[in-house]
């Protein structure tokens, strides 16, 4: 407040120098913003006549735009440009010399392997996300019921799978799945089971990649659901208990509806990430056996990088966009609808 007269004087004393104006004006504007709730004096200050440039510089939206500009540039550089570039790539022929339009896509649509990858990606993503959410939900309930004193420790330990870089932890799983001398088959041998060819048999290989993905992703759901559980007021459960609900009815009628938004959002994000998973499958099976564990990302890598057909690889990976967009629309629409309630 004390500084404002000085700023005004400053503005008046050098009226022909626009840069000084805008900067000094910005200072004044920031000050005005800070004290805006305190008194009328500020309003009179903002009534001062301004040039349109000064006006534009002073507007909150302009300031906001400049403040977010670094991030916008970063996103444009690292997300927008590659996305547009991959669309461009997908329209070229293998040697990237000739424009083929939808040629790559029609080629893909006629290949059985492509449709198998589509099917596998869907099975992989849906099953893995479902079990991640289920495991996360169950474990979150257990952790929620641990007395507050020991809870931190358990939360920390249960998050470990999620914080280890998946490429590294998947290597450990690779050894665990080794058919001849792994811990799994060794243990199972005591019960007269196996040996199981974890990564060599098509069904077991699919099971294994899903298992590792669930192991890696469940802690994220656990921590999100734990936060959601903690935000449900205890009194709702007490009211439900008095209304005659048993534990299952409390979960069905209170917990799940109260967590609906967080379930929808975590499912959406996990669906996207899981659908685009690369590292786990790449390390465990490289898409084998017989391409039966390939996902979009791994198969795009195979045809694009290993098969030296970059445009085809780009086409494969682009195919994820419409599928995920549809899922996102459905899930987020529900979130918006529900958002008005609580």
């Amino acid at each position: 407040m004390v500084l404002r007269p000085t700023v005004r004087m400053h503005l008046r004393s050098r009226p022909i120098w626009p840069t000084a104006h805008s900067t000094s004006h910005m200072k004044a504007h920031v000050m005005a913003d800070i004290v805006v709730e305190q008194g009328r004096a500020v309003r009179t200050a903002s009534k001062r006549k301004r040039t349109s440039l000064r006006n534009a510089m002073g507007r909150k939206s302009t300031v906001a735009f400049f403040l977010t500009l670094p991030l916008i540039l970063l996103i444009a550089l690292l997300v927008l440009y590659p996305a547009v570039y991959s669309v461009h790539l997908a329209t070229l022929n293998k040697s990237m010399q000739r424009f083929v339009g939808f040629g790559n896509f029609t080629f893909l649509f006629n290949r059985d392997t492509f449709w198998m990858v589509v099917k596998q990606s869907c099975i992989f993503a849906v099953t893995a996300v479902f079990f991640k959410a289920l495991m996360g939900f169950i474990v979150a309930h257990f952790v929620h019921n641990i007395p507050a004193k020991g809870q931190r420790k358990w939360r920390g330990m249960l998050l470990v799978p999620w914080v280890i870089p998946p490429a590294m932890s998947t290597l450990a799983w690779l050894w665990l799945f080794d058919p001849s001398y792994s811990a799994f088959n060794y243990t199972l041998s005591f019960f007269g089971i196996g040996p199981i060819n974890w990564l060599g048999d098509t069904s077991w290989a699919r099971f294994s990649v899903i298992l590792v993905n669930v192991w890696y992703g469940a802690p994220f759901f656990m921590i999100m659901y734990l936060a959601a559980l903690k935000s449900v007021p205890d009194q709702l459960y007490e009211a439900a208990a008095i209304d005659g609900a048993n534990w299952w009815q409390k979960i069905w009628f209170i917990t799940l509806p109260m967590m609906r938004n967080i379930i929808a959002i975590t499912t959406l994000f996990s669906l996207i990430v899981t659908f685009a998973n690369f590292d786990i499958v790449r390390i465990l099976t490289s898409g084998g056996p017989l391409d039966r564990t390939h996902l979009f990302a791994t198969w795009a890598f195979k045809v694009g990088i290993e098969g030296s057909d970059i445009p085809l690889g780009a086409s494969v990976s682009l195919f994820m966009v419409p599928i995920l967009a549809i899922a996102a629309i459905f899930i987020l629409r529900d979130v918006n609808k529900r958002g008005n309630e609580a």
Partner: protein
Amino acid sequence: MADVTLRKVIKRYDDVEAVRGIDLDIADHEFIVLVGPSGCGKSTTLRMIAGLEDISDGDIMIGGDVVNDVPPKDRDIAMVFQNYALYPHMTVAENMSFGLRLKHYPKAEINARVTEAARLLDITDLINRKPKQLSGGQRQRVAMGRAIVRNPKVFLFDEPLSNLDAKLRVQMRIEIKKVHQKVRTTTVYVTHDQVEAMTLADRVVVMNKGRIEQIGTPNELYHKPATRFVAGFIGSPAMNFIPCRLEDSGGKLQIRLADRIAFALPPARAVRYNALPRTENLLLGLRPEHLTESNAHLEPGVESFDTVLDVTEPMGMETLVYFGLEGTPVCGRVNPNAGAKDGAPMRLAMDLNNMHLLNEATGVVL
């Protein structure tokens, strides 16, 4: 509908006893209010009746059956919570019918009961709204509606009005009383507000530090408090406690408040207090309304004295006057036309017919 009985109910948390042996008989149709300062164990007692807290010792009976180990859902009670605890994802009708739906009542029966309760509480128009779209008072009504449709044996209210603003609180207080007059369900109501307790209750239970201080009708508690705690807790502004002693003076029993102030006791009081030792430290308990402006015709037992007022608070229908008596702050209520002014001298009258005498050490009203 049923009576509720508590027998030596104790609640221990680790080493702390929150409730230290409560004995209480609540008759069928009765409206009982548990009142006391925060931490006195009143909410814990209510939650034990509800079954939301285990009891550490003793017995709780509802309708003659011991319910110590019966879960809340099987106790046939309904509870209204301080923050209403409405299910935010359900409409008003769904909130109210939730308990009935869980018990698989026929749809027509549920509809009839919800409609009836909504009509009783004047929330028929809100039946399809979500709790978020309701004001505090409306939520309060829905919470009560949820209790009413169940038609339970006992209503339990846990400070239901403390989230409302002062004006609405008065309005809902009357509303609750009306509802109880209509449905006549046995009610246990917890509050820290003594006005709520006095206005709603058939009988008030004053609790302090996990024990019952006194049980009685509002008038009994006001006019015949058993302890200093009850005397000071019930009534606003609170009762004055003035250190005093009994003296014999010329064959009469008199009460000495200060070196210069001593009053002869009215005959009835003199007989009652005559056996007390003269050396004991006592407290004179006098409600502010028994300290009024003096006038020419003093009734027997009313004694006048001069003082200098510290502060006056004009309330409109009366003026509260504050002054010191030998260092003890005292409050009186005078007529607004009596000319009470800050810092001015004033002649006041003390109605000893309505006095209480307390033992300073034990706090017992003698």
